[in-house]
């Protein structure tokens, strides 16, 4: 393996996007959670919802900031490292990225300011509107970026002009390409699950801690958020299994080489087995230490037993994706997904039996599952992106033909610089977030916030003493 500009650019993209995806995966769900909390607070006037809002909005602000700065890197990296990709396909994929900026980034960035700093400046309903707009913005952003990424997986609605550049023939086909609906649903569910698992872990940690202190009888903040989180996981985790299966079916239809890599199929044949384990070996073109169940592979893919499913031998070697990462990434993702379903199912039973807060083993399980959403998201993205190789745009543009004409030393420099900066920034950010979580919702009350005299009963802030109130539009 030669460390040339191509390989280093791939490593750099993988590194920077892996860090970036963690934050949207968390903030998409967290923004919606905050909107729900603020809505419940306005509606029920219960203080607990206000405290929860004030607590989680701090974690949101930290995460969102890190998501913003790591996202800008990506929007410039397309040019610095993958300039041929943009030169050739910019006329097709560019509008999708531009619409993301126009419809989502401005909305999020502008109303985030009101959400974080507008307590004393706007009324409660307007503040709630700002929270909702930020939440909507994060989902719109997911819409466009998933559309662009899905087009790279299942391109359609374009033609290649005489000079090699791409031109759209139908933008509706570009945007709503075959893999887009299933991948958007899969990603949004993943984001909500990730948030639910983090909120659940932080809340379970506090509930566990409180077991050692003075007895808690009623519904304090951590108990409320724990039930909300476990309930969310109970509903969404099984749905995610279906969404993932849907996404897999689309891949099977449109990207058969990816499916073959995921399943570890080398041989094209009918009646494929289900490979549970193995070490895919590209040189030997087979799996070592294979553990498989014969006769059920076709059923998993939803096709009749006598139908032929392609194995990797259907493609010349230079067109095969490297199977190792898709094969294991997929199994890690599915394994974590099954654990999430277990968490939701057991949690739902415990809630129903009113035993949730008295089951330390389950609370510890919730804490342990805190990072599982992030891990599953990373594993899933590696499956889908490595599974697309050797193509950047599946079947049309190879990754190696898309790289910028830059020197290897330049890419090595930038990769080292990113690793250094990201290590500092994201270590610090993670520590700040973990510190807040360890303190729990009381942290919300310890800091300057809407003043006490106007909080109870009403909502966020009305600011009678402020001399420059901006009462809205």
């Amino acid at each position, binding site marked *: 393996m030669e460390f040339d500009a191509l390989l280093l650019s791939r490593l750099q993209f993988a590194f920077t996007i892996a860090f970036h995806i963690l934050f949207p995966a968390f903030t998409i769900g967290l923004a919606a959670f905050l909107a729900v909390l603020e809505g419940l607070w306005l509606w029920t006037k219960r203080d607990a919802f206000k405290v929860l809002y004030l607590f989680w*909005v*701090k974690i949101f*602000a*930290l995460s969102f*900031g890190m998501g*913003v*700065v790591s996202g*800008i*890197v990506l*929007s*410039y990296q*397309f*040019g*610095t490292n993958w*300039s*041929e990709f943009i*030169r050739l*396909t*910019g*006329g097709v994929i*560019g*509008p999708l*990225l*531009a*619409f993301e*900026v*126009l419809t989502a*980034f*401005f*909305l999020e*960035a*502008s*109303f985030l*300011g*009101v959400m*974080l700093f*507008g*307590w004393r400046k706007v009324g409660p309903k307007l503040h709630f509107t700002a929270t909702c707009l930020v939440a909507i913005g994060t989902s719109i952003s997911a819409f466009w970026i998933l559309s662009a990424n899905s087009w790279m997986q299942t391109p359609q609605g374009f033609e290649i002009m005489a000079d090699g550049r791409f*031109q*759209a023939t139908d*933008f509706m086909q570009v945007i709503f390409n075959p893999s887009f609906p299933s991948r958007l649903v899969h990603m949004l569910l993943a984001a909500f699950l990730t948030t639910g698992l983090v909120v659940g872990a932080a809340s379970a940690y506090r509930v566990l801690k409180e077991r050692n202190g003075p007895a808690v009888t009623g519904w304090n903040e951590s108990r409320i958020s724990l039930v909300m989180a476990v309930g969310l996981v109970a509903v969404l985790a099984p749905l995610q299994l279906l969404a993932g299966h849907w996404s897999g079916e689309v891949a099977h239809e449109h990207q058969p080489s990816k499916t073959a890599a995921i399943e570890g199929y080398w041989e094209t044949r009918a009646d494929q087995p289900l490979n549970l384990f193995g070490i895919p070996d590209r040189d030997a073109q087979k799996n070592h230490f294979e553990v498989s169940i014969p006769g059920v592979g076709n059923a998993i893919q939803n096709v009749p037993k006598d139908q032929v499913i392609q194995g990797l031998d259907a493609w010349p070697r230079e067109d095969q994706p490297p199977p190792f990462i898709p094969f294991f990434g997929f199994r890690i993702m599915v394994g974590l997904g099954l654990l999430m379903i277990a968490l939701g199912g057991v949690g739902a039973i415990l809630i129903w039996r009113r035993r949730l807060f008295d089951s330390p083993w389950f609370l510890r399980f919730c804490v342990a599952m805190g990072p599982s959403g992030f891990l599953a998201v990373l594993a899933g993205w590696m499956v889908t992106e490595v599974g697309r190789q050797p193509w950047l745009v599946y079947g049309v543009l190879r990754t190696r033909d898309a790289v*910028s*004409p*830059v020197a290897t030393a*330049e890419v090595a*420099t*930038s990769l080292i*610089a990113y690793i250094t*900066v990201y290590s500092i*920034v994201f270590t*610090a950010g993670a520590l*700040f977030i973990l*510190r*807040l979580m360890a303190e729990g919702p009381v942290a919300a009350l310890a*800091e*300057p*916030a809407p003043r006490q005299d106007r909080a109870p009963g009403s909502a966020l802030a009305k600011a009678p003493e402020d*001399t*420059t109130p*901006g009462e809205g539009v």
Partner: protein
Amino acid sequence: MLDLPLIWAGLIATAVLLYVMLDGFDLGVGILFPFAKSKEERDVMMNTIAPVWDGNETWLVLGGGGLLAAFPLAYSVLMPALYLPVLLMLAGLILRGVAFEFRFRARNRGRKFWTQMFAGGSILTALAQGLILGGFIQGVTVQDHRFAGGPFDWLTPYTLLVAAGIVAGYALLGGAWLMMKTKDSLHGDAKRWTLISAAAVGGLLAAVSVATLFIHPRIASRWGFDLGSGFAVDWPTLAPLLAIPALGLIGLWLVVGMARRGSHRWPFAGALLLFLSGYLGLAASFMPYIAPYAVTFRQAAAPDNALGLMLAGTAVILPAILGYTAWVYWVFRGKVDTEAGYH
């Protein structure tokens, strides 16, 4: 039939101008951070921009994303050409951006570190943007629609001069912004910073203007100078363009004169005018090139159907963006003092 490439060139130029003006004062506040007297002063300085910086920075994402979408050829030539300065800018933007939250969350040593990162990140970003601008104006080497120069083409005495000018210019914007947004002793400091930066900007802008004439024969002839054989001036070409430096002089006068008369707002308007004049001067120099002096904006344009689709969307969305951006500035209008709490 609409001239789509021309409209898009105008839209992207506007986005970049808005970015430079809006994030310019954010970065300027960061550049001035080391000169503040106390933690409380730095808190207030940061609080004047905390609610709006993220929206301001988004214009940079629109500038980059818009260039990618509307002029993919220019984007794919410029980014590899400016690889290292873009890297420096992104590193600076990361450190500056997270410092808003981190400085507030950190304790003791950590706060000191993130204070330094906020200032350092802002200065690095400004320097890098100056190098990018300088490297852009002096032109890039292109062959077969691809960048074909070396990794350090952007590093010349000229680009260093432009970088110094951008740092001084952002400091001026930041100082004038703080004059408008603060009171008492901090306001007095801001006034001093503004006047010092204005002097630096006046000198550097003049130096950059003269140096730019020597960067490429095209620029000299665009301004009516013939520097090839001795020195000749074509007045009919030069005369109408003199309105641009005149605008700059008015801006400079607004900054200095009105600051001395005790105005809190006019210096900021003057600083914006000064930036507008510099921007127009450069735009007049390199139009119609979008990757000087190899690719024009027409050669780089995306297919018409892509430009048309984006224009339809932009026509609806951009007024909304401008509307709610103005509303956010309205909500956070007025002076900021130590009382203005975070979150």
